[in-house]
């Protein structure tokens, strides 16, 4: 039995559906991220789990018990909000002790626990500071300590890092993961930052427009996106439209019909001829062949013109024009010197790195969580 279960959860505001028929199972001790753009329903789901919103349909069960109609203050969940949720008139210690006061814990015990929590989040000497005397990152640590002080059954985090500076964000997200693993507490984390979600979660749930697009471990989400939305949302992804023909994908690279089309070899898949598909390949999976090098056997090779190059720090992203579409190619910076705009290059990528998605015209209702594709493990 899962620790937390969301069964057919939906939430309607008037005539618009913020969440539509979401099903999710979370095991004890897992760190689950709800990932998606604003308005996708992820925060609404979190708030329904916390008890601040009531679902208009469906059921939420915690450790087997139906908690859908239990009020928020009796759910025993610790919540960390996006920002500025610390009580301004209390010191950090008093904030952390709040939940303990509610539980009528003895003063001496409160003090011990507060101390423990401050240590846990690395703010042992800041207990007497007021929120307005703390930096954003410190405030969120206190918020975390406050939520954990009551030893809740679950930890809920609503974009806790979004309002922080990039550097602090990085630091804090690793801390959150470390603490979570140390305590073994089941955690639901909402974010719109995919790097965040991928780096610290046990499983990632990608959402869009109130529905779950895909759910799985981070590697799976990244390497094997199963919907066009997930593919474009996670990392940079090349999406090449084409038609499935005889075990290959026919991709038109030239609008001029006189010039022959290219064919791409992809991972094996069972589709009818003529199905419209999208071929997915990550920019880092494409390499550039030097003019005299021979292409590896069974690889896909395309020629194109470098239209632009963007310096991104550790990599340079080239945009290569092939016929009528662009491919993004990532090259490590120290090798990127030789590639300049206007050059003609040969791109090479292996079939195993090409995933094929069908363009499914029907809306994805009741889509099972597992992907429809046959196994996409390395061939």
């Amino acid at each position, binding site marked *: 039995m899962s620790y937390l279960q969301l069964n057919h959860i939906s939430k309607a505001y008037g005539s618009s559906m913020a969440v539509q028929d979401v099903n999710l199972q979370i095991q004890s001790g897992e760190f689950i991220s709800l990932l998606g753009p604003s308005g996708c329903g992820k925060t609404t789901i979190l708030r329904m789990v*916390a*008890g*601040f919103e009531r679902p208009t349909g469906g059921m939420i069960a915690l450790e087997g018990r139906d908690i859908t109609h239990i*009020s*928020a*203050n*009796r*759910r*025993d*969940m*610790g*919540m960390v*909000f*996006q*920002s*500025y*949720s*610390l*009580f*301004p*008139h209390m010191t950090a210690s008093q904030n952390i002790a*709040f*939940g303990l*006061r*509610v*539980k009528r814990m003895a003063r001496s015990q409160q003090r011990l626990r507060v101390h423990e929590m401050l240590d846990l989040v690395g703010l042992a000497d800041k207990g007497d500071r*007021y929120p*307005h005397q703390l930096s954003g990152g410190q405030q969120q640590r206190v*918020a975390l300590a*406050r*939520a954990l002080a*009551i030893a809740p059954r679950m930890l*809920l985090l609503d974009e806790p890092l979004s309002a922080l500076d990039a550097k602090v964000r990085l630091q804090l997200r690793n801390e959150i993961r470390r603490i979570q693993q140390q305590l073994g507490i089941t955690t639901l984390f909402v974010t719109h930052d995919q790097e965040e979600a991928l780096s610290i979660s046990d499983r990632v749930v990608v959402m869009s427009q109130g529905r779950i697009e895909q759910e799985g471990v981070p590697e799976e989400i990244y390497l094997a996106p199963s919907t066009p939305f997930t593919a474009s949302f996670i990392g940079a992804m090349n999406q090449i439209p084409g038609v499935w023909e005889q075990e290959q994908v026919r991709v038109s690279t030239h609008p001029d019909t006189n010039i022959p089309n290219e064919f791409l070899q992809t991972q094996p898949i069972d589709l009818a001829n003529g199905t419209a598909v999208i071929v997915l390949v990550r920019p880092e999976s494409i390499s550039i062949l030097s003019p005299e090098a021979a292409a590896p056997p069974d690889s896909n090779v395309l020629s194109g013109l470098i239209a632009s190059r963007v310096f991104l720090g550790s990599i340079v992203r080239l945009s290569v024009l092939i016929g009528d579409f662009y491919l993004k190619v990532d090259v490590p910076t120290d090798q990127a010197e030789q590639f300049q705009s206007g050059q003609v290059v040969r791109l090479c990528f292996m079939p195993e790195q090409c995933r094929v998605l069908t363009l499914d015209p029907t809306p994805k209702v009741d889509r099972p969580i597992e992907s429809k594709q046959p196994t996409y493990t390395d061939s």
Partner: protein
Amino acid sequence: MTSIQSRSLWIRYPWLATALGLAPMAIGLIGFLILPILIMVVGSFKTEQGWSIANYLNTMQAEYFKSFVNTLVISLVTALVGGVLGTLTAIVLAWGPFKSSSLLTLASVAANWGGVPLAFAMITTIGNSGWLTEILRMVGLDPYRQGFTVYGNIGLILTYLYFQWPLMLLLMLPAVQRFRLAWREAAESLGATRSQFWQWVGIPILLPPMIGGMALLFANAFGAQATAFALAGGALNLITIKITFLIKGQTDFNPGLANALSVEMTIVLAIAVTIYLITNKRTREWMQ
């Protein structure tokens, strides 16, 4: 034009331009504000016999002391009652389902309208032949039989409330709007019941702006003159009325005493405003 001048006086003495720019307002302030206050303070130590603190001693006399206490009490009552009502109204307006901007316009009108017309409006409403009084008489209640009069303290309090209530509403509204939902939800997620939330979070956070607002309301009422004067002339026992008659009255003319009373009043007001400034600082720290 500027470039030519700038090679001259203005470059060599840049502060000259600043001084000149600020001079007009400075002159105005000195002449019509600083000077009068100074004269007032100095004049409070002047009596017909020369320099002494006799004026101040006089203000401790029964008559003026009573005025002081009376003004204090009336100001405190209107500040407290108006303060509580205003805060509740602000909370209800900011957090409730119904929004009305014309209500706010009405409130800002009422907070700024006062003085003479307000006094007359009150007289025509709860005066001896006011329409509310007559309605009450029809139902069998005659407040005037019980000793109530619009020209008395209670009448004045009711009159002052007319602007104190909406004033507090306007003062508290920003604070209440800045009260974060996250605070309430955080308290809830930590297990607090509604009353625990209010007791430990809601009220304590709203206390600084409330106290500050009430301090201003107090200062407002304490220094008020026009409304009381129009309402009952010299009959009301207020400091500001006493001062008025000490200057404008033919028989009681005593500027020295008036000055002393005024200085004491200013001290009280300064205390109230200081309280406001302190709580305001706290409010700003918290409601960022």
